[in-house]
């Protein structure tokens, strides 16, 4: 994917199979045209803060960040924290999509400003259903904050 393309879904997921399953599901619902997949927190922050490879990118079309918590380099909660304390990303919707069902993860995520917390079901059927609903909701139902000029 070209680095300067408009991106509406950012998938932050280090597990390639999870990523593949997620993208496959979204694809089925035609939601992956402008999806960017990064494999760690550092890359996610580069993308979001338009650093390095992503310097020329446009942020305005980003509908949702699907954020895993356990990530190499920079953890998901840290990514969330930095997003929320940055002027340009603080209003970007973030869905924490993780294998964890731990209460403390849920609490921490919401405290740091996550818009939603979703545990990945182990069964593929439920997983596919959940991801599809998520994608449809955030891409089609939810309305973004009007871009600030």
């Amino acid at each position, binding site marked *: 994917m070209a680095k300067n393309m408009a991106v509406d879904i950012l998938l932050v997921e280090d597990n390639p*199979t999870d990523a593949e399953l997620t993208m496959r599901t979204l694809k089925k619902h035609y939601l992956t045209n402008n999806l960017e997949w990064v494999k760690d927190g550092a890359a996610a922050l580069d993308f979001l803060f338009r650093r390095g490879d992503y310097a020329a990118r446009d942020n305005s079309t980003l509908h949702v960040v699907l954020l895993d918590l356990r990530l190499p380099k920079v953890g998901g909660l840290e990514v969330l924290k930095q997003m929320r304390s940055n002027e340009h990303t603080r209003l970007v919707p973030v869905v924490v999509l993780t*294998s964890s069902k731990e209460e*403390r993860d849920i609490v921490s995520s919401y405290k740091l400003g996550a818009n939603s917390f979703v545990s990945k079901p*182990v*069964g593929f059927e439920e997983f596919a259903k959940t991801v599809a609903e998520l994608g449809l909701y955030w891409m089609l139902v939810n309305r973004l904050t009007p871009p600030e000029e």
Partner: protein
Amino acid sequence: MDKSTMPPPLPSSAVTGAIAVERGEDVHQAFMQALPDGFWINDFSGRFLETNEALCQMLGYTREELLHMNIQDIEASETPGETAAHIQEIIRTGSGRFQTRHRRKDGVVMGVEVSALYTAKLGKRFFVILRDITERKLMEKALLIQNRISNIFLTVSGDEMFNEALKIVLEELRSPYGVFGYLDQGGNLVVPSMTRHIWDKCQVTDKSLFFPRSTWGDSSWPRAIREKKWNYTNEVSARIPKGHIGISRHISFPILFQGKVIGLFQVANKGTDYTEEDIRMLENIAGYVAPILNVELQRKWAEEELRESEKRFRTTFEQAAVGIAHVGTDGRWLRVNQKLCDIVGYTREELLARSFQDITHADDIESDLEYVRQLLAATIPTYSMEKRYLHKNGEIVWINLTVALVRKDSGEPDYFISVIQDISVRKRMEQEIQQLNAELEQRVIQRTAQLQAANADLENFSYSVSHDLRAPLRAIDGFASILREDYASRLDEEGLRLFQVVSDNTRKMAQLIDDILAFSCAGRSELNLTTLDMNALVQQVWQELEPQRAERAIELRLPPLPSARGDHAAVRQVWMNLLANAVKFTRGREPAVIEVGGRHEGEENIYSIRDNGVGFDMAYVAKLFGLFQRLHGMEEFAGTGVGLSIVKRFITKHGGRVWAEGKTGEGATFWFTLPAETIAESGLRNAETTNTVPHS
């Protein structure tokens, strides 16, 4: 000498009359016999010419005997030539009066006063009036003795006093040997005085001045003391110890004061027999000695008591296991005991030349002086402090000091009494303990850190399990599904079934992971105790179990339950697991009945859940609450064998107990207890100590 007590000298007219009497026999006789005093006439050679009845009575001779005697026969003067001198004087002056001693017929010597008249005209005759002055003599003598004894008691003290007094007694009783003793407070005889040369002569070994009452026996002197009565004998004593001087005759005389024997006189070996006169003499002396001796003894005992008390004090002071000192108001040591010297390493002399300030550690002087000020100002009665002295060798000595102030009668501060206890050993031990405690604390910190690290590891492990074990399962299930979806046309029925097996097992694995995490969480989570409405809780859980109850006819019996104190989430989980079990294991029963119960008993609440399900064999009851323990086949009832383990873990954490009863085919009953409120608090503390997992 008092003249009024003496018969008047015979007037010259009386002499003239006497001559006339010679002629008038009757008148002469009447006059002579009427005289109360003895009367005689003797010639120049001393021969009795005439006597009266009173004289016969006095001397114990008949008139006839006397008329054949000479005045020398009754003479008993102790001074030779004295009588001759008296007679010469009378011849020279015509009359005279003097005192001398006469011996009676029975040998008794009596004191007499002689009044005599001499005339040459009447044939050189002596006219003599004799008056018995034994009584008076005795009185005089007694007075004299009293004076001497008073003098002794006034001027001499101690044993010397007894010696001097005894000397007088022996002199007066003309006895060479004697004893003057007193009874001590225990009633024992103490003899401070015994005739000195006897003392030296007496050969009795172990001749003691002290005669304990128990050793007295019944010889004459103990008898005298016991009977409070004198006794005497003029016979040689046979019962005397070997080596003791021979006793030929003796008197034992108790000294009584107010009816009580307080002392003893003994005199012995007078040249002649002891007589009643001697007894009277002793009686006299004893009567006079008694009150004085009593005063003397009382004083002596008071003195002894004081000495004893002082000795006790000195002993206490010196033998004390702690340092004791008297300290002047300026801080100078006035008096110190040996122990204090030992503690600080100075000799007594060195200490007495110093003040307490000199040997007190510089850092402790001010606080000590502050106490001293308060003590002097009487704002505190005493004070105690731990402080340091500097030992003579320079080392620090830790002591515990207790100080009191002694005031003069005027109220003015006199001196301090200080008690000094060496606490160096204790201090050293305290320091060691302190050091040990510090080390221990350090070790606890290390251990805690280790424990925290271990907990963090466990935390990470659980976290990994929840994340990392699920992901591969999802991949297996996901890709199996994709395969089935994308390649469905190429799979036959068996192929599809096999994929279903893969899918089912990943689900089971996922459930297992969830349960393990829940169990691990049950051990780690902190209890947050609140009062729980158990009926509400059961009803809520029952609602949540609705999916499991679908298409089932189950009667839930729920009477009012006592509310409990516990962690909401944990107790909810307990009800959830137990009720879910009951629902699960009553499958196939029509109707299924689940009965919940609860009652307060002692210090705990007991809750129960009874069902009429498949039950279990009591032989396996021990396994029931074990992790991953299942009593039924997977085919029959699904499950991971974690639910009851979690129940047990939560209940145990609350300080409660859990148990079960069952019978195959007839249902099961599960009980759990939660402590009543007061004890729940300690349950909370236990929970806190077992839970150190920090929240991120």
